[in-house]
């Protein structure tokens, strides 16, 4: 595992048994896309009891976005989609986050949708917001397209279809 990934995972409280599970996911995707994975991101939020609730583990390559859904709960529910020039729509919702430096009160949610109708939702709390911002800047914005006709055609579908329901 890259040192920067270890550092990132530790910063959001993933170590011990949870880290082992991340390694299993990484091993799977390394076999499918050898040496292509550039960044990882764990979508999470703070539960009412103060524990972090981890949802999906996302991985990003130059071309693909990969998701290990509910990676701590479900066993091996993996998928992947091409991101290259595919981002038709994105939305960010954030609180107590100035988009420069996250605080303990910061929360952020990024939703994106692709031309195919596939989409994803990534959540972050506290310092993880800075990592989500980095993913947004590096993998979502460069792949956003300006295509009003297609966007209009897909507009209806965008509100009814997402990757999770396919």
């Amino acid at each position, binding site marked *: 595992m890259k040192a920067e990934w270890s550092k990132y995972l530790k910063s959001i*409280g993933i*170590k*011990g*048994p*949870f880290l082992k*599970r991340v390694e299993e996911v990484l091993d799977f995707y390394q076999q499918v896309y050898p040496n292509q994975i550039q960044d990882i991101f764990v979508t999470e939020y703070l*539960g009412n*009891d*103060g*524990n972090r609730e981890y949802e999906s583990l996302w991985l990003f390559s130059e071309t693909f976005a990969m998701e290990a859904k509910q990676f*701590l*709960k479900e066993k091996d529910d993996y998928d992947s989609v091409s991101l290259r020039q595919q981002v038709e729509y994105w939305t960010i919702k954030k609180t107590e986050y100035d988009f420069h430096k996250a605080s303990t009160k910061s929360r952020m949610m990024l939703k994106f949708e692709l031309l195919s109708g596939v989409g994803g939702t990534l959540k972050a709390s506290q310092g993880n917001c800075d990592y989500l911002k980095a993913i947004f800047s590096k993998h979502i914005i460069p792949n956003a397209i300006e295509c009003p006709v297609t966007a209009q055609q897909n507009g209806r579908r965008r509100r009814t279809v997402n990757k999770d329901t396919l």
Partner: protein
Amino acid sequence: METDKPKNIDEYKRWLKDDHHIEVSAHTQNYYDTVVSKAHNDFYATKFWQTLKSDLKQINQQYYLSTNYYLFVGSVLPELHTKPFDSFLLKTFRQNILSNNNWPKPPDSGWLLPKNWYSQINDVVRTCFVVKYLDGVDFLASQLTERSNAAEYDCKVDYEAKEEGYYAAHFYVTFPCEVPRENWDTRNEIISVEIQITTQLQEVIRQMLHKYYEQRRSRPTTDVKWQWDYKSDEFATNYLGHILHYVEGMIMDVRDKKIGKGTKDES
């Protein structure tokens, strides 16, 4: 001549003095405080306790991976407490007198007197872990057993289920401790630490009823059964403990159905 059975703590103190030449004084209490404070500090510094501090998050995550729920509300080690002298003395009163079926002969395990009571009373140092769900009690007890075995400390778990509606696991771990003698020399004692494991719901009721239990335990037993005395405090509080335990069992059943685990109905 047969000694009258002490009925309260003052009579018990008199009995200790007359029959065993033990005077319970301010000095006795000071000495007790010195010994248990040393035991507290030594246990806090043990590798067992210090490792547990760093392992708590890992234990929390292991439970999550098998249940999809966290074990604790927060992964913080609970505070270690020492048993106050009055509670300690009360416990010796219970064991020497109130629960002693051999009276006026000593109980089966012998009289609890200063020469042996630090190693015989098993909760002079104690703490309590609070877990979210009922199955977390057994899970944590197993984790503590593993760690005690690794540290080569003797341990045992008692799953308490009292008629009075009290439910908790009591995990006892013993460790060697060098305690001061009254002449400032030292001697070795095997000290037992009580680690209670309870659930959030039981903890709420424990906090409410703790004082009540203490008072009740210092009274001699009566012939009237609390189960029939519906106007008594005991009737309401004891049954509340049983009801909560039942509710927690039901919560487990619902939770297991939600995550697709087998339930009692399917077995």
